[in-house]
Structure formats: C-alpha cells, structure tokens
C-alpha cells in the first residue's frame, strides 16, 4: 500500500459520514477517483457500517419500559432518602489555588526546617534573645539541630548555634571534663546571661589551671 493510500484511508470513515474536515474530504475525494484499492476499501467500510445499522436492537415495548421505570423509580427514591448529601458550599476553591497554597506552606516549612550554611549563627540567637524564659522554649529550639550536648563535649570546630537554654547552673558548672575547645564562636551565639555564666566558669577553670585560653576575644574582657 502506498503511503498516500495509508494516510488517506484514515480519513475514509470521516469522509463517508461527512464528519471529516473539508480539506481532507476534498483530498480523499480526489484520491478515490483514481485509486481502485481505496475505492474498494471505502465500499467495504460502508458495508460494515450498513450491516451494523441494519440490525438495530429491538425496542422491548411499553410494558418493559413501564416495569423499567417503576423499578428505577423505587431505587431513585431509596437513594434520595438514604444518602441526602449535605448541601455543599457554593464557594469552591479552584484546584490550582489549593495546590499553590499547599506548595507555599511546604516551601515555608522546608525553609524553617533546613538551616542554610549562612543561617547557623544569628537566627537562633535572635530567637533566644526574644525569649524571656529560655528554659521553657528549649526543646523547640533544639529540634532543628542535633541534640545539644553539654558545653564541654562540644568539638573544637563547632561553629553552629549552640543552645544553653536548657542547661541549668549545675550542668554548666560541672567539672567532669577538660575544656579543649575554642569558646569564642560559642560565646558569640549566647545571650548575655548565658555568656556571663560560661565566662565565669571558664575563668575559674583558667585560675585552676585546668584550661588555658589560646586567644583573646571581644567577650574576654
């Protein structure tokens, strides 16, 4: 079969029932004039459609429809009584608006949950400063970070935010371990009250000789 015949035969049914666009109708008509194979194909399709039309489904008669409608009426009444759906609100949010709102909520949530590299210092500090009673809010602040370890256990390279809000005086004053880390980045992230406590403790340890500071900082006055 030629490619032209193959292409035009797709439009044969539409051409036969007059449903094809004018452009294709004219092309099919012109093609059928000189292509006997496609003419035969068109005749065969016409016969198949005619065969279907020649054997319609019988109308079962008025008694059938009467019974049909009676049964259906009972079912409809039953359905109407059984499940009276609550009247829906006239206002319906379009699906794209709902999706956009959901996406916005997700983005905001992710932004708060995942701290960026530049966000490590100031943000938690601001949060801490805003709280008058840091002890009460401590668990919330610790959620975004790995569980806050006691001060002495912090590694030397720690530069992230550290929460001392949950630490009581006993914990901060415990002398179980030796300080081997640089306290300056940590001190920068503390509130004045916390910084004062930690500095007091570090000075005491420096006097004891259990810790020696490597460098001076602005907090070490």
């Amino acid at each position, binding site marked *: 079969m030629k490619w032209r015949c193959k292409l035009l*035969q*797709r439009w*044969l*049914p*539409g051409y036969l*029932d007059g*449903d094809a666009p004018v452009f294709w109708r004219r092309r099919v008509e012109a093609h059928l004039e000189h292509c006997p194979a496609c003419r035969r194909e068109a005749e*065969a*399709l016409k*016969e*198949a*459609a005619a*065969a*279907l*039309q*020649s*054997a*319609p*489904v*019988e*109308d*079962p008669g008025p008694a*059938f*429809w009467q019974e*049909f*409608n009676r*049964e*259906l*009426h009972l*079912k*409809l*009444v039953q*359905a*109407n009584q059984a*499940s*009276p*759906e609550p009247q*829906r609100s006239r206002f319906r949010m379009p699906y794209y608006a709902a999706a956009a709102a959901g996406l916005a909520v997700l983005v905001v949530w992710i932004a708060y949950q995942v701290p960026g590299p530049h966000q490590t210092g100031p943000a938690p500090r601001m949060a801490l400063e805003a709280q008058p009673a840091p002890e009460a809010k401590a668990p919330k602040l610790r959620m975004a970070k790995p569980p806050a370890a006691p001060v002495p256990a912090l590694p030397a390279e720690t530069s992230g935010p550290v929460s001392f809000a949950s630490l009581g005086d006993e914990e901060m004053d415990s002398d179980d371990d030796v300080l081997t880390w640089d306290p300056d980045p940590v001190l920068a992230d503390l509130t004045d009250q916390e910084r004062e406590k930690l500095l007091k403790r570090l000075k005491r340890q420096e006097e004891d000789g259990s810790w020696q500071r490597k460098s001076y900082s602005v907090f070490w006055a």
Partner: protein
Amino acid sequence: MKAGELDSMNDSQLVSRAQEGEVPAFEELVKRYQRDIYNLACRLVADAEEARDMAQQAFLQAFIHIKSFRQQSQFKTWLFRIAINQCYNFLKGKKKFGDPVEPDELHLVEEDSPETEVVARDERRRLYAALERLPAKQRAVLTLKVEQGLSYDEISEALGGSAGAARVNYCQALKTLRKYLKSEEEHEVAVQTTPTVATRVSRR
C-alpha cells in the same frame, strides 16, 4: 409541578433541578435517554437482561453523583460514559468468571416473511459473532457513532481521549468489524461444505 412543565425543559434545567434532589426532574431525563442507554448496553454486554440491569445501574449512579456534574459537557455524553463504565466493569467480571452469552438471547427486530427472516437471522448471527470478537472499546465507539450518531468530539467526551483518537478508533473498529464479518462468512461456508465432502468420502 405540572407534568408538561418538565417536558418543555431542556437538559440543563432538568439537571439543575435534579441536583437539588428533585426525582421527577431526573425521571424526565431518564425517559429521554433510556432507550439510547439500553441500546448501548445491549451492544456492549450482548445480553438483554444484563443490558437492562446495566441501564438501571447507570441511571442510579448518575442520580447519586449528579451533584458532581458541573455541566461542562452534555448530560447525554456524561450518561454514556457512566453506562460504558458500568458495562466495562460487567465485562471484566464476565471475563474473570466466564459466562458465555448466546447471540440468540438478544432481542432483535423480527422480520415478517420466514425466508427473509432466515437470511436476516444468519446475517445477524454473523454480525453479533463479529461484534463479540471486537474489543469492548471498539464496540462502544461503533455504537456511539453509527447508532447514536455522536460526533467525534462527543465520542471523546464519552470514552475519554481526544476527538482524533476517537476517529482513529472508529476507523480501526470498522475495519476490524469488516474483517471479522468476512471471516465469519468464510467460516459458515466452510461448515456448510464440510458435510457434503464427508458424504462423498463415506460413499467411496
């Protein structure tokens, strides 16, 4: 409400009333489309009793879900879609559990003369055997196009997909039907000639 008032309403008005829970308005819609839905179901499930159940189920489902019908398409095509889905589900179950249906079980238009009736019955048998072999979707597209006279756009609304896909599907369905009709005819000729040959062989 007067009976004539519902008759004079268009589909859209009736649907609006049915959406408010008015059963008579929906029953008017049922009256308008019950024959179309029944015919479609008959073609798809090839069983008059089942077709009746399918039609009733389709109307019931339409009534239950009519509040979700937003009138963005025609009520008729929406109804066709529900009926087609009902029939597909039935056919799936039938395929699963096996329930052959004889074409003779169908109610067909009876002819007057006995001779023409015999010829017509043979043709119908061939047609139904050929239809039976067609995939359900092609049967649906043939019925919607040839018997219900829907356009390709309306067929695409009822069956899903695009109008172009409906056109291609219809073309394919017609070709396949013609092929099956031809093969059924050849099969009958072969069956009719076989006893003669057998008789000749037995005489030798």
